[in-house]
């Protein structure tokens, strides 16, 4: 990880956004590294006061990945869009693989509600969220974009407002509606599956 500078990462992101699949292959392990590093941070659930410390770790991780708070791209909106899509793609694939491994690896039968490999806050999973987000974007691309920036790229409301050149209040409202819509969508789905 340390061997790759944020400048290089930025370069890889650019290359990927221009359709260079090889760049993606080099980016994925970087995100995995951060993921595992963070997971270790969470590992000891006993350690006190961890919510704060882990938040700091998460911020660090995002910072290291592409240093994107500082990114001096010709088009910031474009840059963050790419970064968020990258995170979304890698994490959803990651969830899919693990889900597959769990089901197909023959280790044990996983009942439906345990199969959610990566719990969101409570137990919906990345795959379901990915689907729901696709439906949302089809209806309202801007809200889909806000969710990507907020959830996948880890930007704050203020940062998103700056990127989209609008007010934080507007972002906040749209985020609220998008989140409510997704929550309801996932909730319905969870109920239907039962």
């Amino acid at each position, binding site marked *: 990880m340390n061997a790759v500078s944020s400048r290089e990462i930025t370069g890889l992101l650019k290359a990927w956004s221009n359709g260079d699949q090889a760049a993606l292959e080099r980016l994925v392990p970087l995100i995995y590294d*951060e993921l595992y590093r963070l997971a270790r*941070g*969470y590992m*000891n*659930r006993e350690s006190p*006061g961890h919510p704060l410390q882990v938040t700091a*770790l998460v911020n660090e991780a995002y910072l290291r990945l592409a240093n994107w708070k500082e990114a001096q791209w010709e088009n910031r909106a474009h840059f963050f869009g790419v970064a968020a899509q990258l995170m979304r793609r890698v994490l959803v694939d990651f969830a899919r693989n693990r889900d597959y491994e769990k089901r197909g690896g023959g280790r044990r039968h996983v009942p439906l509600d345990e199969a959610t490999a990566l719990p969101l806050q409570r137990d919906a999973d*990345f795959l379901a969220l990915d689907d729901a987000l696709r439906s949302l974007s089809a*209806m309202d691309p801007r809200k889909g974009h806000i969710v990507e920036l907020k959830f996948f790229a880890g930007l704050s409301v203020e940062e998103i407002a700056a990127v989209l050149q609008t007010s934080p209040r507007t972002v906040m409202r749209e985020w609220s509606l998008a989140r*409510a819509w997704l929550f309801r969508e996932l909730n319905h789905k969870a109920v239907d599956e039962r």
Partner: protein
Amino acid sequence: MRPEKWQQINDLYFAALERDGLARAAFLEEACANDGDLRREVESLLESNEDAGEFLSSSALAVAARALAMEQDRFLIGQKIGPYQVLSLLGAGGMGQIYLAEDTRLNRKVALKLLPHEFTRDPDRVRRFKQEARAASSLNHPNILTIFEIGEHEEIHFIVTEFIDGKTLRQRLSGASLKLTELLDILIQSASALAAAHEAGIVHRDIKPENIMVRRDGYVKLLDFGIAKLTEQFLTGEMTRSESLADASAPLVTDPGKVMGTARYISPDHLLGLELDGRSDIFSLGVVLYEMVAGRAPFEGATTGAVMAAILNHEPLPLMRYSRAVPAELERIVEKAIQKDRELRYQVIKDFMIDLKNLKLELEVDARLKRAHPMPARNERRSGDDDAPPPTEELTDDAAQPGATSGRLEPVGGAVPLDSRFYIERSTDREFHEAIERQDSLVLVKGPRQVGKTSLLARGLHQARERGARVVLIDFQSLGQEYFASSEKLILSLAETLADQLDIDASPSRMWNSFMSPGINFERFLRREVLAKIDAQIVWGLDEVDRLFSCEFGSDIFGLFRSWYNKRALDPEGPWKRLTQVIAYATEAHLFITDLNQSPFNVGTRMSLEDFNYEQVAQLNERHGSPLRDRAEIARYVRLVGGHPYLVRRGLHEMVARGWTLPLLEARADQDEGPFGDHLRRVLLSLSQDAALREVVQDVLQGKPSANTDSFYRLRSAGLMAGESARDLRPRCQLYANYLEKHLL
């Protein structure tokens, strides 16, 4: 959806967000005056927004990492850390996860403890930690865990120690009960380890059952020397920030179960922030000893803060209160070890240890003497136990000894103590124990009030525990009104009580998923945190369940119990086979359930508690020193009180206590201030609540039976009346007849 429609929803949603309560409702009412669908859509989204809680509030990377961390055992197992191949997760210790690993250079099994990243991010802390751990590793004592290596590999800091094939004292305590001498032995070995440490100037600071390992061969190993201090700096750093020890919401409580586990053993000196010395460990070890004997810690509280306050201010109950078999010397030793003022405690651990050793020796000598001259008339022992040491060593089992022939009395009422010689076994006892031993899914014990349901339940749980089952007991009568606020609240509280009694660290409320119904949440919790993690049979006793009859969501709870029964039926070899629910409820409530088909249970192994028969009354009479002088008197007495277990015992007790003869008892029997007055008044009271039933009873008393099938069953299952059919209905016993005649006619 049409874009214009969605835009409309957006506008209304944003506008509604700025209003709340009535203003919001009024706004929507007006804005959607003639479009109910639109209004419902906006309201549904607003509601989702409120329900969404923390949904999507942390970033994707954090969520994914957290999920990964939860499955860390999967993710580290098989990996190599330096020369150590990780084999399996052993558990979570004071500071990090502990894995079983193999040292590939020496081909030996070791325990590998990984320090959390947060802890090791600060190089200074790591340096100090290593220093301490090295000091501890210089301690060379057979009862102290040997440290092989303190190392680092690719940012992972770890400690490698000898691998102990055994259980922590906490695990040991929850298994089969320990004999007093075994228990003293564990304490003596621990004290011996501490003596060596104290001599070297090292205070353990975190003595608790989790840090005492008992090997299969009985060898004790103390864990986590030196680590405690650093853990604590880590902890107190947070604690001072909250500036209040008693603040239940202090950051300490990230994992309430864990911290609570530790808080119980903290010495007052420690809480007061004094410079610690060996006397602090003495206190903690004293608390451990107390808990081992009493089955509960001396200082308890609902929150960490309350526990700490109890340590500073409360006097613990004497051990005698838990078991009369506690030797006075043991009481003295424990008391001295857990003095709040350290000046009054044992001053050095060696003195504590010597007292324990002497006590153990004394008990062993006693036991040998008794073996040579066995006491007569002991209760029968468990079978296959021939080699077991004599019963005096067993804490659970000594009560009947002194004065076994002098007819010492015990108070009557409530559950009959486990060790009471006034407990009479009935045929249901055997059926009941067999059902639990078979691990039946749902065992129901029903009967009128005061016929021995709780006593039977207690015995069933006790035997199950002795066999190695894990046992939980919830008494619905003892639950405060707040538990019954809603079905969700009750279900969550039940789950929490379950977790608490089983010492499960995972907190149900933390894994409660608002997407799902409380019942599903409870089921998931049971399956994932209880059944998946506890290998033994789990026997869950629920007493006084009739309280639910009068509760509006009672049927939700019954439905839950039944659903687990069904799960087991669908998958007989699945995890649910290890759950046995034992439910006791009073049928008195049947007086008020108008439709008996609504009776909550139509599944499970059902048994009704029967009255005592003549032989059983005779037996109890004998155990009271035979106040009923002959068979004729016994027969007369049986006619008077029937075989009602409580009445039978109450009367015998009164006769012995007051020196009454049977005629004297008979003369006072139906009086309000007589020995049965309380019981009889309750009978009358419950009848007075239903005029129709009262009339039926009046008719019966006047010899003109008028009961229909319904009132017949209700009166009979409530235990007020007896008989084979409505025409045959009669008062349950002479005493009821006399009393009811006096008051109803």
